[in-house]
């Protein structure tokens, strides 16, 4: 009896200590930036490249003496939460960020998660930078989400126009996984292609993300004889397989996507068949990368063993947060100040050669400035590396 009582008390004690003492003691001059995204399970690749970009940059800043905002210098700490691609967990992650007193969060990676965390973010004054495209996240009355990359309905038209003008593309086909994000992107892509006067020859074929053989999926698409095959919202895991199957079925036209890809994955999965594949990237191609970008890639590779080209597009969100805070230090504790300065904020882009600047855009897509202006870099894959096809800007 006594033993039981003791055990029960002990367990209760351990539990309550575990539950209620998790508040980390905030050391002076540490600036916490959150990350809520998927870093385990099937979609782990999306979140991991994201989280590692942030951690690389943070370690770099801390190693070189910290980041100066206003008259204080901060160490940057990345607080990461794995939402397992579950919108319910994503909410818990955002709550955790609020608990840690964090006001700036990168993520979530998918549409449903980004929509689900909105109430929590707005109630707790958190600005978050999702990698999800639905316009409802960024249009008023929503106010706390900032699109962290170029949306497909922005990059799509640019790519298709280039293809139409430069490569004589007339007929386009779309394939997408039957999940929310890719399907939404396909709808956007089809609309953009039609607006340009292109003929859409196939836009209804979908596949399960767990498909192990894409030949049956692509058979009807290839038979519709498009000049350009668009892989809407394709994940880096599926891209090489789709390319390979299409080519093996005798498809000779162009293939493109509006998501970021990894060169090594393409090389391993499709080999030479991937040559000519067009995708969207950041700024790490040799033509436009600055020394800082090169150093970033170097540090990332050193820290994690292997670089992931998807990170090119994901290096920006943290940079934007820090630069904007620098512009108005009040933002550190107050998202309202951050929002205010967003309209006028401007800083040089350290990662890309030329006179590109960091600023917030999105007036034409969302009616308010709720998107980071990252260069729209369109790459083409060639023998294990990307080459820049053209660079465009989004307003």
């Amino acid at each position, binding site marked *: 009896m006594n033993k039981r009582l003791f055990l029960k008390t002990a367990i209760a004690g351990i539990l309550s200590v575990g539950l209620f003492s998790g508040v980390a003691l905030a050391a002076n001059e540490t600036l916490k930036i959150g990350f809520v995204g998927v870093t*385990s399970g099937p979609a782990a*690749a999306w979140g991991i490249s994201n989280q590692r970009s942030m951690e690389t940059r943070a370690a770099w800043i801390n190693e070189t003496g910290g980041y100066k905002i206003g008259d204080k210098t901060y160490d940057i700490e990345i607080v990461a939460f794995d939402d397992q691609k579950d919108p319910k967990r994503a909410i818990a992650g955002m709550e955790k960020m609020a608990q840690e007193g964090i006001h700036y969060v990168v993520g979530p990676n998918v549409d449903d998660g980004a929509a689900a965390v909105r109430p929590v973010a707005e109630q707790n004054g958190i600005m978050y930078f999702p990698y999800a495209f639905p316009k409802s996240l960024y249009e008023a009355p929503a106010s706390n989400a900032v699109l962290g990359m170029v949306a497909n309905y922005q990059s799509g038209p640019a790519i298709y126009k280039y293809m139409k003008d430069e490569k004589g593309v007339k007929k386009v086909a779309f394939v997408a996984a039957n999940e929310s994000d890719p399907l939404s992107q396909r709808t956007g892509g089809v609309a953009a292609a039609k607006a340009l006067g292109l003929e859409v020859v196939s836009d209804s074929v979908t596949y399960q993300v*767990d498909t192990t053989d894409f030949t*049956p999926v692509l058979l009807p698409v290839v038979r519709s004889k498009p000049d350009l095959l668009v892989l809407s919202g394709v994940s880096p895991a599926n891209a090489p397989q789709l390319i390979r199957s299409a080519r*093996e079925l005798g498809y000779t036209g162009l293939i493109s996507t509006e998501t970021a890809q990894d060169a090594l*994955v393409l090389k391993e999965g499709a080999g030479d068949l991937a040559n000519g594949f067009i995708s969207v990237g950041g700024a790490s191609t040799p033509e436009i990368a600055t020394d800082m970008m090169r150093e970033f890639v170097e540090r990332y590779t050193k820290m994690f063993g292997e670089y992931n080209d998807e990170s090119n597009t994901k290096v920006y969100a943290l940079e934007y947060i820090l630069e904007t805070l620098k512009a108005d230090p009040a933002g550190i504790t107050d998202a309202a100040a951050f929002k205010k300065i967003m309209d006028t904020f401007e800083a040089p882009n350290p990662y890309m050669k030329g006179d590109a600047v960091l600023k917030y855009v999105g007036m034409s897509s969302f009616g308010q400035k709720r998107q980071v202006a990252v260069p729209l870099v369109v790459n083409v894959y060639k023998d294990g590396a990307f080459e820049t096809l053209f660079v465009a800007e989004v307003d």
Partner: protein
Amino acid sequence: MEQVLANGLYLGAQYALIALGLTLIFSLMNVLNFAHGQMYVFGGFVTYTVVAQLGLPFIVGLILSGIVLGVMGALIEKYLFRPVIARSTREESTMLLAAGIAFFLDAVILLLFGEKQRGIPKIIDGVLNWDYRIIMPYDRILIGVLAIAAICIFIMYMQYSKTGRAMRALAQDRVAAELMGVDVKYYSMIGFALGAMLAGIVGGLLVSITGINLGMGGPASIKAFMMIMIGGAGIISGAIAGGFILGMMESVGLLVFAAYGDITYLMIFVSLIIFLAIRPHGLMGKPWG
């Protein structure tokens, strides 16, 4: 049409091989191995490591995948499933264990092999093109043939070897087999190892075509479950039939429903439910399970 059949056959061969291991384990121990897909992924990564990182021939990778997974399966059976089965009041409890193992393997795969999609270079180049009626790359044909060969070897083994016969007796009636002097513990372990080994070999085979990533495990398990339901749980021939049927359904369905893309799989799933409502034990299943 020829193309559709060829695609269906190729898909069916790989599916059947995945389902075989799962159904073997189920027939012997009544365990629905949720971790089967993860084992398949693990096998794929072993072959990847051997071929792409160490530069050894494909066949070495394939054999090593089988061995590594076989050993893993034997250990899992001996130290995890056996004690749990012995002590649990409801045998479904093993599902939690199997799911725990699936999570565990997911974590290990992520830590060991990373989050990226991996693949190895094509084993043979070139595409068979029969008058544009059947287009089939040679490596795909080779893998399809290897898969069918593996299925045949497995059936022969179950039919004619002493171990195979013992396992079949065990699958039919555990108690009777025990009375007949079959070492139930030993053969359960061998059976689990064999099932896991099959998963590893499929992983190794497919890494050369579709590549591998850590997300493929869970969905692969679910697909394999569907196949063994179609054929009848715990029936070897049922699993093979289920694999080929699902392969054909996908191949045909994707062509027929191409215009309504989003509903192809919905159709496949709904027809599976209707089929089972009419035939509650699958094509050739026994009324057990």
